[in-house]
């Protein structure tokens, strides 16, 4: 196991692995997203209370969950890169940020569009919405901090520290609906064994969650392979790879 990790930490092996893995993320993503969209938008019944508008859930919930998962991965992997000086971990952390920021943006935008007809307001300053907005700012700060240094080592050092400090926001987002009286609804998976969503509506949601996870993996690979080439541009294998095309 440890040997395998060490091997993967070599830029060349990591680069070759990303290229090999791309189809293994692309095709499941396409399959799951088509299935999930069809199931969620066509097959699933309308909600007893919210009518057809609840279908926004199928993109709102996966993107909100992913916004937190990607941040978690970014901070943890960034921390690993910081402590052990593993270049490939720094690459994964860096290219994760714009993807996570986009998921956060989608969660906020679809939430606002959903809130208007249901609550009667695009935006309220309740604990859930505010903490998710802070997550977006954390991502943006991370990205610009990463771009603010010419030396990639210094850049990932500074940005990783920021990401780790910002981790404190994740439990705040998750528990905000419990700790404070929010306008936002409670968690649908409060009790995992007894989800508050009817199975006919829950299945497409789970499929969309998997689709978004493969989407993240796919975008991560696509961006990581180019980031490696830039960072390793003085190695011989990169020169041979690029000029040999």
């Amino acid at each position, binding site marked *: 196991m440890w040997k395998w990790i060490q091997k993967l930490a070599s830029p060349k092996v990591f680069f070759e692995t990303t290229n090999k893995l791309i189809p293994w993320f692309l095709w499941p993503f396409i399959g799951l997203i088509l299935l999930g969209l069809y199931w969620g938008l066509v097959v699933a019944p309308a909600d007893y209370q919210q009518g057809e508008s609840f279908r926004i859930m199928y*993109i709102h919930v996966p993107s909100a969950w992913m916004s937190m998962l990607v941040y978690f991965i970014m901070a943890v992997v960034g921390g690993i890169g910081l402590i052990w000086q593993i270049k490939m971990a720094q690459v994964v952390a860096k290219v994760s940020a714009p993807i996570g920021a986009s998921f956060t943006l989608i969660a906020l*935008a679809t939430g606002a569009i959903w809130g208007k007809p249901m609550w009667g307001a695009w935006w309220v300053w309740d604990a859930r919405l505010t903490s998710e907005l802070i997550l977006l700012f954390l991502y943006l700060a991370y990205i610009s901090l990463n771009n603010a240094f010419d030396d990639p080592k210094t850049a990932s050092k500074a940005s990783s520290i920021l990401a780790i400090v910002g981790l404190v926001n994740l439990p705040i987002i998750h528990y905000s609906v419990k700790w404070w009286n929010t306008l936002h609804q409670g968690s649908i998976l409060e009790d995992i064994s007894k989800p508050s969503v009817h199975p006919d509506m829950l299945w497409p949601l789970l499929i969309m969650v998997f689709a978004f996870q493969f989407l993240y993996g796919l975008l991560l690979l*696509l961006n990581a392979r180019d980031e490696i080439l830039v960072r390793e*541009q003085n190695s011989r294998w990169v020169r041979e790879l690029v000029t040999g095309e």
Partner: protein
Amino acid sequence: MTLAETLSYLPYGKYAFYIWLSYGVTFLVIAELFVRASRNHKKVHFDLKNKYAREDD
């Protein structure tokens, strides 16, 4: 008549505007991620090729 009412002939009736808008926004944001990735891919290869060509001269 509001925009939401104007678009109520679409599937999902009175919520058509909100549903299509949210799915549309999501599509655009994700498409942008792929466009950026592909542009960056081309740029990296182009820049590196130039760099190596210059060094070889």
